[in-house]
C-alpha cells in the first residue's frame, strides 16, 4: 500500500520546489484585479489604434522624429495597459503638439 502511494505521489504529485513556487505565487495578493481586462480591453484597443497613427515616427522630422520614435517604442511595450496608454497620450499631446480625440 505504502509503495503504491509513494509511486502515485512520485508520478502525479507536485515536487517540493514546485510547492514552494506555488505558495510564493499564491501569497503575492489575495485577489487578482481583473478590471484591466474586463473593463479596459476595448478602451485600450481603441486608444492604441489612435495613438499608433498619431505617434508614427514617419509623420515627423528632426527632433520630433526622435520623440515620436521613443513614444512609439513605449506604445509597443504598453499596448495592453490602458493606464499606461493614457500617460502616453498625454506625452504625445505635449511633446508632439498633436491633437488626440
Amino acid at each position, binding site marked *: 500500500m*505504502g509503495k503504491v*502511494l*509513494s509511486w502515485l*505521489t512520485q508520478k*502525479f*504529485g*507536485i*515536487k517540493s*520546489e*514546485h*510547492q514552494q*513556487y*506555488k505558495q510564493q*505565487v*499564491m501569497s*503575492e*495578493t489575495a*485577489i*487578482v484585479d*481583473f*478590471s*484591466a*481586462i*474586463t*473593463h*479596459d*480591453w*476595448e*478602451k*485600450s*484597443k481603441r486608444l492604441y489604434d489612435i495613438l499608433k497613427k498619431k505617434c508614427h515616427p514617419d509623420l515627423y522630422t528632426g527632433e520630433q522624429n526622435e520623440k515620436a520614435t521613443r513614444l512609439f517604442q513605449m506604445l509597443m511595450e504598453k499596448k*495592453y*495597459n490602458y493606464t499606461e496608454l493614457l500617460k502616453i497620450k498625454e506625452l504625445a499631446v505635449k511633446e508632439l503638439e498633436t491633437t488626440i480625440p
Partner: protein
Amino acid sequence: MFANTWNKIISWFRDRSERNRLVRSFNESAREAFVLGEAPAMLEASISRGDPAYKHAFSRWMYSGFRIKIFTGRLLTKDEMIFIGNTILSNEQLVRRLVVLGWDTLEIHGENATYGCKWKLADHIEPINLLNS
C-alpha cells in the same frame, strides 16, 4: 507517508476551490463592466479541457483550459481575439496564478465557440525551468 498524501488531498481541494473562486471573480468583474457600460462585450470565463500538448509540471490531468467566451452580438475578428488574449497574457501576476492553479491553456472564443485562439500559458511566465516536469 500518510501525512504527505493527506496534505496532497487537502491541497487538491484547496486548489479546486481557488480555481472556482478565480473564475467566479473574473465573471463578476466582467458582468459589472458590462452592466456599467464600460465594456461593449461581455466576457465569460469557464474551465475547458485544454490542450494536452501544452502540459507543464503544475497542469491538472484534465480540464486544464481557461476559456473566455466573448458575447458581442456579432462575429469577432481574429485581431480582437488576439488583443484580448494578449491583454490577459500581459498581466504576469494573473498568468502565474493560472499556471500554479493547474491551467495550461488560455482559450479565447467567440459567442458560438466554433473557432477561437489558444495560447500555451507556460510560455508567458519567467521561471521556465520549474515547469519542466
